[in-house]
Protein backbone atom coordinates (compact mmCIF):
# COMPACT_ATOMS: atom_id res chain seq x y z
CA UNK A 1 0.00 0.00 0.00
CA UNK A 2 1.28 3.45 -0.87
CA UNK A 3 1.98 5.75 2.06
CA UNK A 4 0.56 9.19 1.56
CA UNK A 5 1.58 12.14 3.66
CA UNK A 6 -1.08 14.77 3.97
CA UNK A 7 -1.76 18.00 5.79
CA UNK A 8 -4.01 17.64 8.78
CA UNK A 9 -7.43 19.29 8.71
CA UNK A 10 -6.63 21.66 11.51
CA UNK A 11 -10.07 23.22 11.66
CA UNK A 12 -11.37 21.75 14.85
CA UNK A 13 -11.88 23.85 17.94
CA UNK A 14 -9.29 21.68 19.64
CA UNK A 15 -6.68 22.55 17.04
CA UNK A 16 -7.21 26.26 17.40
CA UNK A 17 -7.31 25.99 21.17
CA UNK A 18 -3.96 24.20 21.10
CA UNK A 19 -2.41 26.76 18.79
CA UNK A 20 -3.96 29.58 20.82
CA UNK A 21 -2.64 28.12 24.07
CA UNK A 22 0.86 27.83 22.66
CA UNK A 23 0.57 31.37 21.31
CA UNK A 24 -0.30 32.59 24.79
CA UNK A 25 2.75 30.82 26.25
CA UNK A 26 4.93 32.44 23.60
CA UNK A 27 3.57 35.86 24.52
CA UNK A 28 4.28 35.17 28.18
CA UNK A 29 7.84 34.22 27.25
CA UNK A 30 8.29 37.38 25.22
CA UNK A 31 6.88 39.42 28.08
CA UNK A 32 9.51 37.90 30.37
CA UNK A 33 12.24 38.67 27.85
CA UNK A 34 11.04 42.26 27.60
CA UNK A 35 11.18 42.64 31.36
CA UNK A 36 14.64 41.10 31.61
CA UNK A 37 15.79 43.51 28.97
CA UNK A 38 14.08 46.51 30.53
CA UNK A 39 15.03 45.98 34.16
CA UNK A 40 18.18 43.98 33.53
CA UNK A 41 19.03 40.55 34.86
CA UNK A 42 18.46 41.82 38.36
CA UNK A 43 14.91 40.42 38.15
CA UNK A 44 16.22 36.92 37.49
CA UNK A 45 17.78 34.55 39.98
CA UNK A 46 21.00 34.55 38.00
CA UNK A 47 23.95 36.42 39.44
CA UNK A 48 27.68 36.83 39.11
CA UNK A 49 28.27 33.32 40.43
CA UNK A 50 25.55 31.39 38.62
CA UNK A 51 25.80 33.22 35.33
CA UNK A 52 23.87 30.70 33.25
CA UNK A 53 20.60 29.59 34.79
CA UNK A 54 17.25 28.13 33.92
CA UNK A 55 17.03 29.75 30.47
CA UNK A 56 20.18 27.87 29.52
CA UNK A 57 18.78 24.64 30.92
CA UNK A 58 15.84 24.96 28.55
CA UNK A 59 17.88 26.30 25.65
CA UNK A 60 20.58 23.64 25.74
CA UNK A 61 17.95 20.95 26.23
CA UNK A 62 16.04 22.14 23.16
CA UNK A 63 19.16 22.46 21.02
CA UNK A 64 20.41 19.03 22.03
CA UNK A 65 16.97 17.48 21.52
CA UNK A 66 16.78 19.14 18.10
CA UNK A 67 19.73 17.21 16.77
CA UNK A 68 18.38 14.01 18.30
CA UNK A 69 14.93 14.53 16.84
CA UNK A 70 16.53 14.22 13.43
CA UNK A 71 17.56 10.70 14.31
CA UNK A 72 14.42 9.05 12.96
CA UNK A 73 14.89 10.77 9.62
CA UNK A 74 18.54 9.75 9.54
CA UNK A 75 17.66 6.12 10.08
CA UNK A 76 15.47 6.36 7.00
CA UNK A 77 17.63 8.56 4.81
CA UNK A 78 21.14 7.51 5.74
CA UNK A 79 20.74 3.94 6.89
CA UNK A 80 18.07 3.20 4.31
CA UNK A 81 15.56 1.66 6.67
CA UNK A 82 12.35 1.83 4.63
CA UNK A 83 9.99 1.48 7.54
CA UNK A 84 11.15 4.78 8.96
CA UNK A 85 10.63 6.75 5.78
CA UNK A 86 7.08 7.88 6.46
CA UNK A 87 8.21 9.06 9.88
CA UNK A 88 11.05 11.15 8.51
CA UNK A 89 9.33 14.44 7.63
CA UNK A 90 8.06 14.94 11.18
CA UNK A 91 11.53 14.16 12.43
CA UNK A 92 13.12 16.87 10.28
CA UNK A 93 10.40 19.35 11.13
CA UNK A 94 10.85 18.74 14.86
CA UNK A 95 14.58 19.23 14.51
CA UNK A 96 14.11 22.65 12.94
CA UNK A 97 11.42 23.69 15.40
CA UNK A 98 13.30 22.61 18.53
CA UNK A 99 16.45 24.37 17.39
CA UNK A 100 14.49 27.54 16.70
CA UNK A 101 12.91 27.39 20.14
CA UNK A 102 16.23 26.80 21.86
CA UNK A 103 18.01 29.57 20.03
CA UNK A 104 15.17 31.97 20.79
CA UNK A 105 15.64 31.37 24.51
CA UNK A 106 19.40 31.69 24.24
CA UNK A 107 19.12 34.97 22.38
CA UNK A 108 16.39 36.51 24.49
CA UNK A 109 18.40 35.79 27.61
CA UNK A 110 21.39 37.83 26.46
CA UNK A 111 22.26 40.85 28.56
CA UNK A 112 21.94 42.84 25.35
CA UNK A 113 19.52 40.82 23.24
CA UNK A 114 19.16 43.86 20.99
CA UNK A 115 22.73 43.30 19.90
CA UNK A 116 22.47 39.57 19.16
CA UNK A 117 22.85 40.24 15.47
CA UNK A 118 26.39 41.49 16.12
CA UNK A 119 27.46 37.86 16.24
CA UNK A 120 26.82 37.76 12.49
CA UNK A 121 29.66 40.10 11.60
CA UNK A 122 31.90 40.43 14.67
CA UNK A 123 33.06 36.84 14.46
CA UNK A 124 35.78 35.58 16.77
CA UNK A 125 37.24 32.49 15.12
CA UNK A 126 38.52 31.06 18.40
CA UNK A 127 35.12 31.16 20.10
CA UNK A 128 33.08 27.97 20.31
CA UNK A 129 30.05 30.25 20.44
CA UNK A 130 30.96 31.69 17.08
CA UNK A 131 31.38 28.21 15.64
CA UNK A 132 27.97 27.39 16.95
CA UNK A 133 26.42 30.30 15.08
CA UNK A 134 27.75 28.69 11.89
CA UNK A 135 26.65 25.24 13.04
CA UNK A 136 23.10 26.35 13.80
CA UNK A 137 22.71 28.07 10.44
CA UNK A 138 24.08 25.03 8.64
CA UNK A 139 21.75 22.73 10.55
CA UNK A 140 18.74 24.83 9.57
CA UNK A 141 19.92 24.83 5.98
CA UNK A 142 20.59 21.11 5.66
CA UNK A 143 17.51 20.02 7.55
CA UNK A 144 15.24 22.38 5.64
CA UNK A 145 16.71 21.09 2.38
CA UNK A 146 16.23 17.54 3.56
CA UNK A 147 12.61 18.25 4.46
CA UNK A 148 12.10 19.80 1.05
CA UNK A 149 13.50 16.78 -0.77
CA UNK A 150 11.06 14.63 1.16
CA UNK A 151 8.03 16.80 0.47
CA UNK A 152 8.67 17.83 -3.12
CA UNK A 153 8.98 15.03 -5.67
CA UNK A 154 10.93 17.24 -8.09
CA UNK A 155 13.67 17.62 -5.50
CA UNK A 156 14.17 13.87 -5.20
CA UNK A 157 17.63 13.82 -6.81
CA UNK A 158 19.00 15.78 -3.87
CA UNK A 159 17.44 13.51 -1.25
CA UNK A 160 20.52 11.45 -0.50
CA UNK A 161 22.83 14.42 -0.41
CA UNK A 162 20.58 16.39 1.92
CA UNK A 163 20.03 13.36 4.14
CA UNK A 164 23.73 12.73 4.58
CA UNK A 165 24.48 16.41 4.98
CA UNK A 166 21.91 16.81 7.72
CA UNK A 167 23.11 13.65 9.45
CA UNK A 168 26.76 14.63 9.53
CA UNK A 169 25.91 18.18 10.43
CA UNK A 170 23.81 17.11 13.40
CA UNK A 171 26.76 15.17 14.80
CA UNK A 172 28.97 18.22 14.45
CA UNK A 173 26.27 20.42 15.93
CA UNK A 174 25.92 18.37 19.11
CA UNK A 175 29.68 18.10 19.39
CA UNK A 176 29.77 21.90 19.18
CA UNK A 177 27.12 22.21 21.89
CA UNK A 178 29.06 19.85 24.11
CA UNK A 179 32.25 21.77 23.48
CA UNK A 180 30.70 25.02 24.73
CA UNK A 181 31.11 23.43 28.13
CA UNK A 182 34.04 21.18 27.30
CA UNK A 183 36.26 24.18 26.67
CA UNK A 184 35.76 25.63 30.12
CA UNK A 185 39.01 24.14 31.36
CA UNK A 186 39.07 26.08 34.57
CA UNK A 187 35.86 24.58 35.89
CA UNK A 188 35.93 21.24 37.64
CA UNK A 189 32.54 20.25 36.28
CA UNK A 190 33.32 20.89 32.66
CA UNK A 191 36.58 21.02 30.81
CA UNK A 192 36.42 17.44 29.61
CA UNK A 193 36.24 16.20 26.06
CA UNK A 194 33.78 13.56 27.28
CA UNK A 195 31.03 16.17 27.25
CA UNK A 196 30.72 16.08 23.47
CA UNK A 197 30.02 12.33 23.08
CA UNK A 198 27.88 12.48 26.19
CA UNK A 199 25.74 15.16 24.60
CA UNK A 200 25.42 13.17 21.38
CA UNK A 201 24.09 10.13 23.22
CA UNK A 202 21.76 12.25 25.35
CA UNK A 203 20.48 13.97 22.23
CA UNK A 204 19.33 10.66 20.74
CA UNK A 205 17.32 9.89 23.84
CA UNK A 206 15.80 13.35 24.28
CA UNK A 207 14.99 13.84 20.61
CA UNK A 208 13.32 10.46 20.27
CA UNK A 209 11.27 11.01 23.43
CA UNK A 210 10.00 14.32 22.10
CA UNK A 211 9.24 12.63 18.80
CA UNK A 212 7.00 10.15 20.61
CA UNK A 213 5.41 12.95 22.61
CA UNK A 214 4.44 14.78 19.44
CA UNK A 215 3.54 11.80 17.24
CA UNK A 216 1.08 10.09 19.58
CA UNK A 217 -1.18 13.07 20.35
CA UNK A 218 -1.04 14.14 16.71
CA UNK A 219 -2.49 10.81 15.64
CA UNK A 220 -5.00 10.56 18.43
CA UNK A 221 -6.30 14.10 17.99
CA UNK A 222 -6.05 13.90 14.21
CA UNK A 223 -7.97 10.61 14.31
CA UNK A 224 -5.50 8.86 12.09
CA UNK A 225 -4.49 5.25 12.42
CA UNK A 226 -1.28 4.61 14.37
CA UNK A 227 -0.27 0.96 14.39
CA UNK A 228 1.75 -0.89 17.01
CA UNK A 229 4.62 -1.48 14.63
CA UNK A 230 5.72 2.15 14.54
CA UNK A 231 5.44 2.50 18.28
CA UNK A 232 7.34 -0.72 18.82
CA UNK A 233 10.24 0.61 16.80
CA UNK A 234 10.27 3.91 18.65
CA UNK A 235 10.06 2.11 21.96
CA UNK A 236 13.02 -0.09 21.08
CA UNK A 237 15.03 2.98 20.18
CA UNK A 238 14.21 4.55 23.53
CA UNK A 239 15.31 1.44 25.39
CA UNK A 240 18.67 1.41 23.61
CA UNK A 241 19.20 5.14 24.09
CA UNK A 242 18.34 5.00 27.79
CA UNK A 243 20.91 2.27 28.25
CA UNK A 244 23.51 4.25 26.30
CA UNK A 245 22.80 7.46 28.24
CA UNK A 246 23.07 5.63 31.51
CA UNK A 247 26.36 4.16 30.41
CA UNK A 248 27.73 7.58 29.39
CA UNK A 249 26.68 9.03 32.73
CA UNK A 250 28.42 6.22 34.52
CA UNK A 251 31.62 6.60 32.51
CA UNK A 252 31.63 10.37 33.03
CA UNK A 253 31.32 10.14 36.79
CA UNK A 254 33.71 7.23 37.12
CA UNK A 255 36.35 9.10 35.14
CA UNK A 256 35.87 12.07 37.43
CA UNK A 257 36.21 9.93 40.51
CA UNK A 258 39.33 8.38 39.07
CA UNK A 259 41.01 11.77 38.77
CA UNK A 260 41.52 12.66 42.40
CA UNK A 261 41.26 16.36 41.63
CA UNK A 262 37.63 15.99 40.68
CA UNK A 263 36.72 14.01 43.74
CA UNK A 264 35.37 16.99 45.67
CA UNK A 265 33.14 17.93 42.78
CA UNK A 266 31.86 14.37 42.44
CA UNK A 267 31.08 14.17 46.11
CA UNK A 268 29.15 17.40 45.73
CA UNK A 269 26.97 16.15 42.86
CA UNK A 270 26.54 12.58 44.04
CA UNK A 271 26.25 13.02 47.78
CA UNK A 272 26.27 16.44 49.43
CA UNK A 273 24.89 18.75 46.79
CA UNK A 274 21.35 19.15 48.15
CA UNK A 275 19.08 20.03 45.26
CA UNK A 276 21.69 18.94 42.70
CA UNK A 277 22.14 15.56 44.32
CA UNK A 278 18.38 15.07 44.44
CA UNK A 279 17.98 16.15 40.83
CA UNK A 280 20.77 13.85 39.78
CA UNK A 281 19.59 10.69 41.51
CA UNK A 282 15.85 11.19 41.54
CA UNK A 283 15.51 13.30 38.39
CA UNK A 284 18.13 12.16 35.94
CA UNK A 285 18.71 8.58 37.05
CA UNK A 286 15.41 7.34 38.51
CA UNK A 287 12.81 9.36 36.58
CA UNK A 288 14.92 9.84 33.47
CA UNK A 289 16.40 6.36 33.08
CA UNK A 290 15.29 3.65 35.50
CA UNK A 291 11.52 3.98 35.60
CA UNK A 292 11.02 4.48 31.85
CA UNK A 293 13.45 1.65 31.17
CA UNK A 294 11.47 -0.70 33.38
CA UNK A 295 8.16 0.44 31.91
CA UNK A 296 9.42 -0.08 28.39
CA UNK A 297 10.77 -3.60 28.92
CA UNK A 298 8.56 -5.12 31.65
CA UNK A 299 6.11 -7.66 30.18
CA UNK A 300 3.07 -6.03 31.79
CA UNK A 301 3.72 -2.54 30.53
CA UNK A 302 5.85 -2.78 27.43
CA UNK A 303 2.93 -2.95 25.03
CA UNK A 304 0.92 -0.22 26.65
CA UNK A 305 0.59 3.02 24.74
CA UNK A 306 -0.07 5.11 27.80
CA UNK A 307 3.07 3.69 29.40
CA UNK A 308 5.07 4.62 26.32
CA UNK A 309 3.70 8.13 26.54
CA UNK A 310 4.41 8.27 30.28
CA UNK A 311 7.96 7.06 29.69
CA UNK A 312 8.57 9.77 27.13
CA UNK A 313 7.30 12.41 29.55
CA UNK A 314 9.60 11.08 32.26
CA UNK A 315 12.57 11.04 29.92
CA UNK A 316 12.00 14.71 29.15
CA UNK A 317 11.71 15.56 32.85
CA UNK A 318 14.88 13.58 33.51
CA UNK A 319 16.54 15.48 30.68
CA UNK A 320 15.71 18.84 32.23
CA UNK A 321 17.04 17.58 35.55
CA UNK A 322 20.24 16.43 33.82
CA UNK A 323 20.71 19.83 32.18
CA UNK A 324 20.11 21.56 35.49
CA UNK A 325 22.68 19.41 37.26
CA UNK A 326 25.20 19.80 34.44
CA UNK A 327 24.81 23.53 33.87
CA UNK A 328 23.75 25.02 37.20
CA UNK A 329 25.31 22.36 39.43
CA UNK A 330 28.57 22.79 37.57
CA UNK A 331 28.61 26.47 38.46
CA UNK A 332 27.32 26.11 42.01
CA UNK A 333 30.47 24.27 42.97
CA UNK A 334 33.07 26.95 43.72
CA UNK A 335 36.15 27.42 41.58
CA UNK A 336 39.25 26.30 43.36
CA UNK A 337 41.85 29.04 43.02
CA UNK A 338 44.09 28.16 45.94
CA UNK A 339 44.37 24.38 46.41
CA UNK A 340 44.94 23.44 50.02
CA UNK A 341 43.36 26.62 51.39
CA UNK A 342 39.92 27.53 52.66
CA UNK A 343 38.85 30.59 50.68
CA UNK A 344 36.53 33.35 51.89
CA UNK A 345 35.57 36.65 50.29
CA UNK A 346 32.80 39.15 49.63
CA UNK A 347 32.50 37.60 46.16
CA UNK A 348 31.44 34.21 47.55
CA UNK A 349 34.76 32.49 46.90
CA UNK A 350 34.98 29.03 48.39
CA UNK A 351 31.21 28.78 48.96
CA UNK A 352 28.55 26.74 47.23
CA UNK A 353 26.75 29.35 45.15
CA UNK A 354 23.03 29.74 45.64
CA UNK A 355 20.55 30.02 42.83
CA UNK A 356 16.76 30.15 42.77
CA UNK A 357 15.27 30.70 39.34
CA UNK A 358 12.70 33.48 39.20
CA UNK A 359 9.33 33.14 37.48
CA UNK A 360 10.70 35.24 34.60
CA UNK A 361 13.19 32.53 33.77
CA UNK A 362 10.52 29.84 33.82
CA UNK A 363 8.36 31.98 31.57
CA UNK A 364 11.18 32.46 29.10
CA UNK A 365 12.12 28.78 29.04
CA UNK A 366 8.56 27.57 28.64
CA UNK A 367 7.91 30.26 26.04
CA UNK A 368 10.80 28.94 23.96
CA UNK A 369 9.46 25.42 24.19
CA UNK A 370 6.08 26.76 23.08
CA UNK A 371 7.73 28.36 20.05
CA UNK A 372 9.01 24.95 18.98
CA UNK A 373 5.67 23.22 19.52
CA UNK A 374 3.66 25.97 17.82
CA UNK A 375 5.89 25.68 14.77
CA UNK A 376 5.15 21.98 14.60
CA UNK A 377 1.42 22.37 15.13
CA UNK A 378 1.26 24.97 12.40
CA UNK A 379 3.52 23.15 9.95
CA UNK A 380 1.58 19.88 10.04
CA UNK A 381 -1.45 21.84 8.91
CA UNK A 382 0.20 23.54 5.94
CA UNK A 383 2.78 20.93 4.89
CA UNK A 384 2.44 17.26 4.04
CA UNK A 385 4.32 16.13 7.13
CA UNK A 386 2.22 13.34 8.62
CA UNK A 387 1.30 10.10 6.83
CA UNK A 388 -2.44 9.65 6.49
CA UNK A 389 -2.13 6.33 8.16
CA UNK A 390 0.56 4.60 10.16
CA UNK A 391 -1.44 1.41 10.56
CA UNK A 392 0.69 -1.72 10.65
CA UNK A 393 -0.27 -3.00 7.20
CA UNK A 394 0.57 0.39 5.71
CA UNK A 395 3.89 0.85 7.38
CA UNK A 396 5.29 -2.59 6.81
CA UNK A 397 3.06 -4.96 4.85
CA UNK A 398 5.57 -7.78 5.18
CA UNK A 399 6.05 -7.55 8.89
CA UNK A 400 5.65 -10.83 10.67
CA UNK A 401 2.58 -10.92 12.77
Amino acid at each position, binding site marked *: MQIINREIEGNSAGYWALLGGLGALILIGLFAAYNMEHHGHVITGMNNQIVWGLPHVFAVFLVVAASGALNVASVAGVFGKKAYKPLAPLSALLAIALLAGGLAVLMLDLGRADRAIITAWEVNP*TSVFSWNVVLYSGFFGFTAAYLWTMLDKTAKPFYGFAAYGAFIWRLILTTGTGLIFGFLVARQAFGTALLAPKFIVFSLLYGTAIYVLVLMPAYIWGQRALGDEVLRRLKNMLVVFIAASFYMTLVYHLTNVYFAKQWDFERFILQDGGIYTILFWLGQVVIGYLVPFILLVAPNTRNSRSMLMASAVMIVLGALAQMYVTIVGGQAFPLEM*FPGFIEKSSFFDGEI*HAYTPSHWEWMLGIGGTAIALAMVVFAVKVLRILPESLADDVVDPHAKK
Partner: protein
Amino acid sequence: MNNFEQYRRRFLGGALATAGAAMVPGLMLVEMAHSRAPEEAVSSKNRWGLLIDTTKCASGCTECVTACNTEHGLSGKTGPQDAQWIRKVELTHKKSGAQHSLPVMCQHCEEPPCVDVCPTGASFKRADGIVLVDRHICIGCRYCMMACPYKARSLVHEDLNDTQLAHMPRGKGCVESCTLCVHKIDAGENTTACAQACPEQAILFGDLNDAGSEIAQRLATYASKEIRADLGLNTGVRYTGI
Protein backbone atom coordinates in the same frame (compact mmCIF):
# COMPACT_ATOMS: atom_id res chain seq x y z
CA MET B 1 34.93 64.30 20.30
CA ASN B 2 33.09 63.57 23.52
CA ASN B 3 34.72 61.89 26.45
CA PHE B 4 33.34 58.49 25.66
CA GLU B 5 34.60 58.56 22.12
CA GLN B 6 37.96 59.83 23.26
CA TYR B 7 38.15 57.02 25.72
CA ARG B 8 37.18 54.49 23.10
CA ARG B 9 39.92 55.65 20.76
CA ARG B 10 42.60 55.37 23.37
CA PHE B 11 41.10 52.16 24.51
CA LEU B 12 41.68 50.61 21.14
CA GLY B 13 45.01 52.23 20.59
CA GLY B 14 43.71 54.34 17.72
CA ALA B 15 45.59 55.38 14.64
CA LEU B 16 45.64 59.01 15.72
CA ALA B 17 47.85 58.16 18.62
CA THR B 18 50.28 56.39 16.35
CA ALA B 19 50.57 59.50 14.23
CA GLY B 20 51.19 61.58 17.33
CA ALA B 21 53.94 59.29 18.48
CA ALA B 22 55.64 59.41 15.10
CA MET B 23 55.98 63.17 15.34
CA VAL B 24 58.04 63.23 18.51
CA PRO B 25 60.35 60.26 18.30
CA GLY B 26 63.24 61.82 20.19
CA LEU B 27 61.20 62.59 23.25
CA MET B 28 59.72 59.14 23.20
CA LEU B 29 62.96 57.24 23.57
CA VAL B 30 63.77 58.86 26.87
CA GLU B 31 60.27 58.29 28.18
CA MET B 32 59.89 54.74 27.04
CA ALA B 33 62.03 53.07 29.62
CA HIS B 34 59.57 53.93 32.37
CA SER B 35 56.12 54.54 31.05
CA ARG B 36 54.20 55.21 27.92
CA ALA B 37 53.48 58.82 27.01
CA PRO B 38 49.82 59.60 26.38
CA GLU B 39 50.39 60.29 22.68
CA GLU B 40 52.15 57.05 22.03
CA ALA B 41 50.30 54.08 20.59
CA VAL B 42 49.66 51.06 22.71
CA SER B 43 52.30 48.52 21.85
CA SER B 44 53.67 45.20 22.94
CA LYS B 45 56.82 46.92 24.13
CA ASN B 46 55.00 47.13 27.45
CA ARG B 47 53.38 44.41 29.46
CA TRP B 48 51.61 46.03 32.35
CA GLY B 49 51.08 44.05 35.50
CA LEU B 50 50.90 43.97 39.27
CA LEU B 51 52.98 42.28 41.91
CA ILE B 52 51.14 41.70 45.15
CA ASP B 53 53.11 41.06 48.31
CA THR B 54 50.75 39.03 50.48
CA THR B 55 53.03 39.29 53.47
CA LYS B 56 52.30 43.01 53.60
CA CYS B 57 48.60 42.80 52.78
CA ALA B 58 46.57 43.15 55.99
CA SER B 59 43.69 40.86 56.77
CA GLY B 60 40.38 42.69 56.79
CA CYS B 61 41.78 45.78 55.07
CA THR B 62 39.77 46.73 51.98
CA GLU B 63 41.35 50.05 51.02
CA CYS B 64 42.17 48.82 47.51
CA VAL B 65 38.59 47.67 46.98
CA THR B 66 37.16 50.99 48.09
CA ALA B 67 39.61 52.91 45.92
CA CYS B 68 38.72 50.83 42.89
CA ASN B 69 35.00 51.34 43.44
CA THR B 70 35.46 55.09 43.77
CA GLU B 71 37.76 55.30 40.77
CA HIS B 72 35.32 53.51 38.48
CA GLY B 73 31.98 54.54 39.90
CA LEU B 74 31.00 51.12 41.27
CA SER B 75 28.41 51.05 44.03
CA GLY B 76 30.53 48.96 46.39
CA LYS B 77 27.58 46.75 47.20
CA THR B 78 28.44 43.08 47.62
CA GLY B 79 25.22 41.19 46.87
CA PRO B 80 25.36 38.21 44.51
CA GLN B 81 24.28 40.40 41.59
CA ASP B 82 26.56 43.37 42.29
CA ALA B 83 29.71 44.00 40.31
CA GLN B 84 33.03 43.50 42.10
CA TRP B 85 36.14 44.18 40.10
CA ILE B 86 38.48 43.49 42.98
CA ARG B 87 37.85 41.58 46.17
CA LYS B 88 39.86 40.64 49.20
CA VAL B 89 40.20 36.88 49.60
CA GLU B 90 41.03 35.53 53.04
CA LEU B 91 42.89 32.21 52.95
CA THR B 92 43.37 29.65 55.70
CA HIS B 93 45.59 26.71 55.02
CA LYS B 94 43.66 23.50 55.62
CA LYS B 95 46.52 21.73 57.40
CA SER B 96 48.78 24.33 58.94
CA GLY B 97 46.11 26.94 59.61
CA ALA B 98 48.38 29.62 58.11
CA GLN B 99 46.42 32.70 57.10
CA HIS B 100 46.88 34.98 54.16
CA SER B 101 44.93 37.92 52.85
CA LEU B 102 45.16 39.11 49.29
CA PRO B 103 43.27 41.03 46.62
CA VAL B 104 42.07 39.19 43.51
CA MET B 105 41.11 41.00 40.35
CA CYS B 106 41.35 40.30 36.62
CA GLN B 107 44.78 38.72 36.24
CA HIS B 108 45.27 40.16 32.75
CA CYS B 109 46.22 36.80 31.33
CA GLU B 110 48.55 36.66 28.38
CA GLU B 111 46.43 33.77 27.08
CA PRO B 112 43.05 34.95 28.29
CA PRO B 113 40.29 32.31 28.16
CA CYS B 114 37.72 35.12 28.26
CA VAL B 115 39.05 36.43 24.95
CA ASP B 116 39.13 32.98 23.38
CA VAL B 117 35.50 32.26 24.07
CA CYS B 118 33.92 35.66 23.39
CA PRO B 119 31.69 35.29 20.32
CA THR B 120 31.93 38.90 19.22
CA GLY B 121 35.47 39.84 20.10
CA ALA B 122 34.17 42.30 22.70
CA SER B 123 36.53 40.73 25.17
CA PHE B 124 39.98 41.63 23.90
CA LYS B 125 43.59 42.01 24.90
CA ARG B 126 45.50 45.15 24.07
CA ALA B 127 49.00 44.96 22.73
CA ASP B 128 50.30 46.02 26.14
CA GLY B 129 48.64 43.05 27.83
CA ILE B 130 45.60 44.75 29.33
CA VAL B 131 42.44 42.69 28.93
CA LEU B 132 39.28 44.72 28.45
CA VAL B 133 35.64 44.45 27.39
CA ASP B 134 34.48 46.70 24.57
CA ARG B 135 31.10 47.72 25.88
CA HIS B 136 29.91 48.65 22.42
CA ILE B 137 29.90 45.10 21.11
CA CYS B 138 29.44 42.98 24.25
CA ILE B 139 26.13 41.14 23.91
CA GLY B 140 26.02 39.99 27.52
CA CYS B 141 26.24 36.26 26.83
CA ARG B 142 28.45 35.72 29.93
CA TYR B 143 30.51 33.05 28.24
CA CYS B 144 33.62 34.92 29.36
CA MET B 145 32.41 34.73 32.96
CA MET B 146 32.09 30.98 32.58
CA ALA B 147 35.58 30.75 31.14
CA CYS B 148 37.52 32.95 33.57
CA PRO B 149 39.34 30.79 36.13
CA TYR B 150 39.43 33.68 38.62
CA LYS B 151 35.78 34.74 38.59
CA ALA B 152 37.12 38.16 37.74
CA ARG B 153 34.12 39.36 35.78
CA SER B 154 30.72 40.76 36.65
CA LEU B 155 27.59 41.36 34.63
CA VAL B 156 25.88 44.68 35.18
CA HIS B 157 22.50 43.42 36.36
CA GLU B 158 20.55 46.66 36.58
CA ASP B 159 20.31 50.26 35.47
CA LEU B 160 23.27 52.34 36.53
CA ASN B 161 21.18 55.48 37.03
CA ASP B 162 23.88 57.91 35.91
CA THR B 163 26.49 56.69 38.33
CA GLN B 164 28.89 56.28 35.43
CA LEU B 165 32.06 58.30 35.21
CA ALA B 166 33.20 59.85 31.93
CA HIS B 167 36.42 57.84 31.77
CA MET B 168 34.72 54.52 32.53
CA PRO B 169 31.68 53.77 30.39
CA ARG B 170 29.61 50.91 31.77
CA GLY B 171 26.30 49.45 30.69
CA LYS B 172 23.42 47.36 31.92
CA GLY B 173 23.55 43.91 30.33
CA CYS B 174 27.28 44.09 29.59
CA VAL B 175 30.11 42.34 31.32
CA GLU B 176 32.98 44.23 32.93
CA SER B 177 36.09 43.66 34.98
CA CYS B 178 39.24 45.31 36.25
CA THR B 179 40.75 47.49 33.50
CA LEU B 180 44.11 47.81 35.24
CA CYS B 181 43.13 51.49 35.38
CA VAL B 182 43.73 51.76 31.68
CA HIS B 183 42.65 55.40 31.72
CA LYS B 184 45.47 56.22 34.10
CA ILE B 185 48.04 54.32 32.08
CA ASP B 186 46.89 56.02 28.90
CA ALA B 187 47.22 59.37 30.62
CA GLY B 188 50.81 58.44 31.50
CA GLU B 189 50.09 58.15 35.22
CA ASN B 190 51.78 54.81 35.52
CA THR B 191 49.86 53.46 38.48
CA THR B 192 46.48 52.03 39.47
CA ALA B 193 43.93 53.18 42.02
CA CYS B 194 44.46 50.07 44.15
CA ALA B 195 48.25 50.40 44.15
CA GLN B 196 47.95 54.07 45.12
CA ALA B 197 45.49 53.36 47.89
CA CYS B 198 47.22 50.47 49.62
CA PRO B 199 48.51 51.77 52.98
CA GLU B 200 51.02 48.92 53.17
CA GLN B 201 52.38 49.31 49.63
CA ALA B 202 51.49 45.69 49.06
CA ILE B 203 50.53 46.31 45.42
CA LEU B 204 53.24 47.22 42.96
CA PHE B 205 52.31 48.33 39.46
CA GLY B 206 54.75 48.25 36.58
CA ASP B 207 55.98 47.06 33.22
CA LEU B 208 56.97 43.40 33.25
CA ASN B 209 58.79 43.90 29.96
CA ASP B 210 61.06 46.63 31.26
CA ALA B 211 63.99 44.87 32.89
CA GLY B 212 64.89 48.05 34.76
CA SER B 213 61.48 48.48 36.39
CA GLU B 214 61.01 47.70 40.06
CA ILE B 215 58.40 45.07 39.34
CA ALA B 216 60.62 43.23 36.86
CA GLN B 217 63.55 43.34 39.25
CA ARG B 218 61.53 42.05 42.15
CA LEU B 219 60.14 39.27 40.00
CA ALA B 220 63.68 38.40 39.01
CA THR B 221 64.85 38.34 42.62
CA TYR B 222 62.05 36.75 44.64
CA ALA B 223 59.89 33.70 44.10
CA SER B 224 56.46 34.71 42.90
CA LYS B 225 53.31 32.82 41.99
CA GLU B 226 50.54 32.96 39.47
CA ILE B 227 47.14 31.81 40.67
CA ARG B 228 46.28 28.58 38.89
CA ALA B 229 49.67 28.53 37.22
CA ASP B 230 48.79 25.01 36.06
CA LEU B 231 46.54 26.53 33.41
CA GLY B 232 49.51 28.18 31.76
CA LEU B 233 47.79 31.52 31.17
CA ASN B 234 50.86 33.59 32.05
CA THR B 235 49.04 36.16 34.13
CA GLY B 236 50.08 39.78 34.41
CA VAL B 237 49.24 39.80 38.11
CA ARG B 238 51.67 37.93 40.34
CA TYR B 239 51.79 37.17 44.05
CA THR B 240 54.59 36.68 46.54
CA GLY B 241 54.28 35.21 50.02
CA ILE B 242 51.86 32.36 49.34
